[in-house]
């Protein structure tokens, strides 16, 4: 069978490639995962084309790797068993925005930047939860890896904001989940049995999303920030508890890094809040200040005075300072283990991060995001490296692997883990739960074609 020709027949010659230079691009992401070239890259333009590709792959048992912008940094979109990479970025329509119901229906190729710009232009009183990823990252990709955004402190992981799904199942059936399965409205996946969970956090191993309903939220006219500074990491969890108790904050971010010097030996708790008027902003600011007044009085913590340029930097959405950190070693590389941990483990996690960095003679950075009013947090163990310096890359890799282990020791779970860490998770997981995952996957994907290697439970 001439697979190339079959793919051309489905999407047209323009949207299939087996050229070495293009395969090279899809052989890697920006992290440290080993490269592996796919056999083909295909860019479908519709759910029907995706369906035909899946049917073809199923017939010939060819691995399929659905990708958005391939920005996970942990190799989730690297075709480790070769096969066909399905690049979904042509499917980038914002199909519908229901203003009064505050939801949007989008295709998988819609980027963070596109949705943000579209809403700002057409629905200025609505917004979505935006991660600090590059604007080229896809909204659906972020949701499928349980990403977090600037609204996660209020509403939880971005994956909890899904109101409906259209999926091409691994056997080629197109399936709708949620209200959209029986109604023209995409308002919720409830009150039906919660099937959405079979597709969220599975890294494309259970199907290919072709449409997604997404909750939108009120976008206030003004946005501001206060930065609370502590020199004792042990106090951070309580500070976060007090701040989130006010219900005044939109986003709460923790930060610790050795450079610039002003940030050394202190932990910053960035508190974002918003309002439609100055009065609302000032009221919220006052509530936030009052919530940590005990630390101010004891001289254990205080709010930073932010110069306008620093404030502007902090308020940027998404924060480009992340990319500056990525190039701190020059040569433009960084990896991180996003540990989802209880907030009470903050100080211990920070200690481990510093120990790991010291052991591997590597610089580090930490940015964390509170999820769901302190229900948990994403704690990043971040390590920059220089791509031109093999030794620096090795050190970063070793530090990263140790961070995965440290996360599990803390009672946390590595977020969007690379294969190595997925295995560590599965080994420690309740055996029956792991078996259930295997059964679900076997049921949905009997030929094991979907992003193989990921979430594979050993026999």
């Amino acid at each position, binding site marked *: 069978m001439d697979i190339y020709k079959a793919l051309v027949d489905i999407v047209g010659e323009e949207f299939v490639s087996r050229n070495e230079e293009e395969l090279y691009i899809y052989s890697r992401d920006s992290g440290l995962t080993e490269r592996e070239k796919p056999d083909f890259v295909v860019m479908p333009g519709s759910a029907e084309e995706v369906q035909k590709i899946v049917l073809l792959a199923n017939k010939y048992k060819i691995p399929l790797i659905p990708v958005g912008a391939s920005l996970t940094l942990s190799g989730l979109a690297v075709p480790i068993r070769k096969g066909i990479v399905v690049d979904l970025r042509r499917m980038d329509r914002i199909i519908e925005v229901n203003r009064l119901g505050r939801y949007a229906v989008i295709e998988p190729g819609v980027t963070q930047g596109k949705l943000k710009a579209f809403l700002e232009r057409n629905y200025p009183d609505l917004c979505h939860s935006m991660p600090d990823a590059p604007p080229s990252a896809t909204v659906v990709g972020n949701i499928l890896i349980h990403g977090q955004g600037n609204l996660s402190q209020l509403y939880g992981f971005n994956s909890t904001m899904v109101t409906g799904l259209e999926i091409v199942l691994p056997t080629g059936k197109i399936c709708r989940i949620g209200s959209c399965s029986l109604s023209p409205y995409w308002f919720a996946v409830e009150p039906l049995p919660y099937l959405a969970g079979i597709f969220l956090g599975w890294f494309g191993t259970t199907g290919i999303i072709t449409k997604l309903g997404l909750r939108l939220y009120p976008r206030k006219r003004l946005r501001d920030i206060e930065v609370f*500074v*502590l*020199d004792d990491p042990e106090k951070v969890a309580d500070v976060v508890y007090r701040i989130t108790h006010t219900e005044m904050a939109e986003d709460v971010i923790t930060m610790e890094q050795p*450079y*610039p*010097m*002003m*940030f*050394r*030996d*202190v932990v910053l708790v960035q508190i974002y809040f918003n309002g439609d008027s100055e009065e609302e902003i000032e009221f919220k600011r*006052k509530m936030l*200040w009052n919530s940590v007044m005990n*630390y*101010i009085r004891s*001289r*254990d*913590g*205080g*709010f*930073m*005075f932010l*110069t*306008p*340029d620093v404030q502007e930097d902090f308020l940027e959405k998404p924060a480009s300072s992340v990319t500056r950190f990525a190039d701190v070693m020059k040569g433009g590389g960084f990896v991180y283990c996003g540990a989802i941990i209880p907030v009470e483990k903050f100080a211990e996690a920070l200690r481990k991060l510093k120990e790991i960095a010291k052991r591997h003679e590597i610089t580090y950075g930490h940015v964390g995001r509170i999820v769901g009013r302190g229900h948990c947090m994403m704690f990043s163990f971040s390590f920059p490296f220089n791509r031109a310096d093999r030794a620096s890359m090795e050190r970063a890799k070793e530090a990263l692997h140790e961070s995965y282990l440290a996360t599990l020791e803390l009672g946390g779970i590595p977020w969007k883990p690379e294969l190595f860490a997925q295995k560590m998770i599965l080994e420690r997981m309740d055996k029956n739960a792991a078996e259930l995952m295997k059964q679900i996957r076997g049921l949905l994907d009997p030929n094991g074609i979907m992003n193989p290697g990921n979430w594979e439970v050993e026999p």
Partner: protein
Amino acid sequence: MFELKFDRAVCEDCTTVDCLVRCQYMDFDVEEAKREIMKLINGEDSVVLHECATCYACEEYCKRGNHPFYLITDLQEKKGIFPAPRPILRQWINLAIPGKKDFPHFPGAKEPVISLCLFPEYIGSIQGKLFEDVSVILGRHFFCQLVYLHFGKPSIIRERLPKIIENIANHGFKEVVFFHDECYSTFTSYANAYGIHVPFKPVHFFEYLYENLKKRESEIEPLNVKVAYQRNCSTRLTPWKEHYLDKIFELIGAERVERKYDRENALCCGGIIRSLQRYDLFVDVQKRNVEDMARANAEYCVFNCPACYSSLAKRVEEKGIKPVMIHELCKLALKRA
């Protein structure tokens, strides 16, 4: 180590106790003020050590040159009474540690030389007719350190200052123009009060601007604008150079509006008060100050200190008043010529 030149007899004899009676952030009558100043000169605890907003104004209110503010800050440190939370102080201490981008020496720098302190963002503004042929030095190796007066940690100033002076002196300059008022006040008032030798002549930016405007007087087209001036804290340490400002305003055709909170009665920009975590006071001070400027129909709010600008510019803009640094206003008068 350097000791403050402080004469207790001067305070004991004082009948007006202006240093505390005139304080804008604490309320004392003469009797109470006398009691508190006596506690201070005896090295005892006083409410002043806890409530001081660190505006520096008492240094100016004391017409006998006895350095009440320096005494307060030394006592705060001695007694461990820190006006700001520990982590905020930690940030400020770390801020001044030189990094890779800081140069201890500027080869080829020659007079006239302007020290830009830690304000690299102003390099682009040091250009045009007023700044022809000037050299600039800047960075943490030239940072005056005076800010630690606000945080009850003045020993850091005395510890670091000799090295900073050495870094500047190594260039062989006879005179150095200080862009930041705080630097000028460090190398004059503070160094003198603690007997720290400064082997070059500090020149205030006002003096530099005035002399250079004077040279180009024929090129000036008067601005004919009404301005409010925001005094910064360290001007209280060196009030003798303030007359240059009035001369500058006169030269460029800027009318300094009559208002309540000007000259010796000036209010703090609020930035430091906020850093000391006194949010209500910060809001109140900024509000009173800006409303006063607006009432006096000021069109511009003129700043001498970049930190004051950062703290107050947004507030004055909201009131329809244009914030401007003094040298930018001067350039405007020349540019129109």
